[in-house]
């Protein structure tokens, strides 16, 4: 990713204030659009906030959606660290769900949960990784633009899912394209059920064990990137491919590795959806999470902690958006897509729009402590 040379802002501004300002800008523009569609934006915000956090059930739904965003957000963030733009999250999520579903459908009468579930999770990772590996390989060894290939693979994945669900996996006697239900042994327990087991009562929601897996993935990604040599090599590649070559880092292999890991993470959306919520293979379960992952990664500055926080925000947007669509028939969930796009626009493309104002505003409070010689050296 190309980044312009800028005078550095203190970290609390760069990683904290600036993303918040950008998100607020995006939401303001969204407010204008909502107004143009004939709805009072303040009303809309109120409905969304209540819809997302106003009840235990709402919070549960928000966190359930957030789980998916964590997976795709981590996927995009990890790829960004290697300098690659993985837009194929949606397709990789579909394939991940396919993998988990196939294992569940294939072995739910044979294997116990303790073996079946990890196997299904591994399959989700494997299928997602494989779907990302091909564009990754093409980028690394043929120079094929990864943005175009991953988008093509999204389309191909969608068509593949339709074909499989209509012709191969459809439950016998069913009218709609979905598979039979996976056996209870393959289903991930819902969190409200688990909490009841230890004496806590919370309202039922789709929030399930995969949320814990998402949290673990955040930690794992952080550890990988900053505490392993391969993660180090991936970050070198992302900043400077020439330095990577100089250091003996195999650019091709590292590129493919980065995308495989990225695809595997996106594939875990399938674990949440298929094993945790839908309990069967259906169409369109990954809709919107691919692009949402990009927004989440950008706001979260590609850091697992930021991704986690941003995912909660987007989970709230999704859940709030559903309420919004319910209350105002003229606004559909497509509005959430618009917000996602606006967030990417303001946090990604126009991220530095407000920088001059921020710099001016905090200038009296901050001294530029960088070495003077450094700025003088141009050669």
């Amino acid at each position: 990713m190309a980044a312009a040379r800028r005078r550095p802002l203190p970290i609390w501004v760069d990683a904290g204030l600036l993303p918040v300002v950008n998100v607020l800008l995006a939401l303001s523009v969204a407010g204008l659009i909502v107004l143009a569609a004939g709805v009072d934006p303040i009303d809309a915000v109120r409905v969304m906030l209540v819809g997302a956090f106003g009840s235990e059930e709402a919070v549960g739904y928000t966190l359930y959606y957030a789980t998916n965003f964590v997976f795709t957000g981590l996927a995009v963030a990890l790829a960004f660290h290697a300098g690659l733009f993985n837009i194929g999250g949606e397709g990789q999520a579909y394939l991940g769900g396919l993998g988990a579903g196939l294992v569940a459908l294939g072995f739910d009468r044979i294997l116990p949960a303790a073996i079946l579930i990890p196997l299904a999770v591994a399959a989700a990772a494997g299928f997602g990784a494989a779907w990302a590996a091909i564009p990754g390989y093409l980028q690394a060894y043929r120079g094929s633009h990864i943005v175009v290939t991953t988008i093509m693979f999204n389309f191909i994945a969608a068509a593949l899912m339709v074909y499989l669900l209509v012709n191969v996996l459809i439950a016998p006697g069913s009218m709609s394209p979905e598979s039979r239900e996976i056996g209870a042994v393959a289903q991930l327990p819902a969190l409200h059920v688990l909490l009841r087991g230890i004496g806590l009562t919370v309202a039922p929601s789709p929030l399930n064990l995969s949320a814990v897996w998402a949290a673990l993935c955040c930690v794992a990604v952080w550890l990988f990137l900053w505490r392993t040599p391969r993660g180090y090599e991936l970050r070198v590649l992302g900043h400077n491919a020439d330095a990577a070559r100089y250091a003996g880092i195999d650019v091709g292999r590292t590129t493919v590795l980065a995308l495989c890991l990225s695809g595997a993470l996106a594939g875990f959306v399938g674990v949440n959806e298929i094993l945790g919520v839908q309990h069967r293979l259906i169409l369109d379960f990954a809709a919107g999470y691919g692009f949402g992952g990009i927004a989440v990664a950008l706001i979260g500055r590609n850091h697992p902690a930021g991704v986690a926080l941003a995912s909660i925000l987007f989970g709230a947007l999704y859940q709030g958006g559903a309420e919004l669509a319910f209350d105002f028939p003229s606004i559909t969930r497509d509005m959430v897509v618009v917000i996602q796009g606006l967030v990417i626009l303001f946090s990604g493309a126009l991220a530095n729009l407000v920088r001059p104002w921020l710099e001016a505003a905090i200038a009296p409070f901050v001294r530029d402590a960088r070495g003077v010689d450094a700025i003088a050296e141009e050669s």
Partner: protein
Amino acid sequence: MPPPPVIELRAIDKWFGAVHANRGVSLAIARGTITGIIGENGAGKSTLMNILYGLVEADGGQILVDGAPVRLRRPADAIAHGIGMVHQHFLLVDRLTVLENVALGAEAAPLLGRALRAARVELARLERDYGLEVDPDAPVGALPIGAQQRVEILKALYRGARVLILDEPTAVLTPQETDRLFRILRSLKAGGVTVILITHKLREIMAATDTVVVMRRGEVVAERATAATDREALAELMVGRKVRLALDKAPAVPGPPALVVERLGLRDRRGVAVLDDVDLALNAGEIVGIAGVSGNGQSELLEVLAGMRAPTAGRITIGARIITRHAPADPAEMRALGVAHVPEDRRRFGLVAPFEARESAVLGYQRRAPFSRRGWLDPAALSRHCRALMTHFDVRPPIPTVPSAGLSGGNQQKLILAREIAPAPRVLLVGQPTRGIDIGAIEFIHRRLLALRDAGCAILMVSVELDEIMALADRILVMAGGRIAGVVAGADADERRLGLMMTAS
């Protein structure tokens, strides 16, 4: 009354952030002279000329052209006042022809057919008048460097430049090509063009200019008639203290060969031989210098020896390992074999700018203990290592968590050198060890390289600075056209001889 100076700068001030790049610079350039502006890197001479050419706007002060104050906000303004500039890194579009490059931005008509026809006539006239022959229909990318430079000069003249600024023009030329350039400059002077030459090479100032201006730390510290001064005086003015232009060097005691290259060849993607039949033996405890104008295969030689490229012919023997086209090595393996590499372009290859210094300090060594153990990277070990490197090589500021880009060029180079020397390599490959570095750091680095040699390391050094090669190398190999054009013992080397070898191809 004498005519006003063609260019006058009064109290020019320029800040880049917290750095005062030009401090109240005042300068007058007489018409029809060749003026040299000399100074170390960071002295502010390039900034000053960029202001004169309108690439950068001054924060304070005045510019007068022919006695009248002007405002130069963009290159277009400077061009309109007859000021032209030849940059150190040519601004030519390889894809386009000489004619198209010259006409770019100054086309006489919206349709190319007509515009280029007119340009062709004018170009022919300029070539004749100043001895700047170049084929107008050749794609610029296919021309040799000397010819490309002539295209740059033609570009400026085509736009009616009466003042021509040249920024470090001889960095890429052999001594003989440099002489040709100076002949062109004299013919420009005879034609009434005023020439301003920016350089850090004392030899050229003495050879080509009428007047010398010395800059130091953003200020003009002296102005002399060239005939009335000498190299030592200028060096002292540049640095502010007496400078030793040569180092004390004990004679080398070469040991057994550490790395042997036989009939090495490299063809690029188009099949052009960038390296051809290169033989060389690097002995322990010896510094071998590769001299030559850049672009003659030295960079590629370093890349092949470092494992960044595989040879297409010949072989490299290091210890028991024989590297050929069919058994190539990568940089990781070369490091494991004890070959360290300080790259020519340190910012592009040697560091990762956004990384903290401690992360750049293990670049290439990240999988080794103690930095990595059983698959885990240890940041504390990285910090300890970085601090040690910084202490031994006087890198400032000695803070492991400072961003690599926050170090000055000299400190970056010291850190890279420290990193590569730390594992006590058998062989050290060094490209342009002191490019863009101030004199204090240069002395430091040279002394360290000699110490390393005396400790038994085999050092291969590529440099375009003949002074550096002649000061450090025990044996000098001259490269031209991808081949070794000659071998000279360090003690027997002189510029004339080396320069002649550089043009052989």
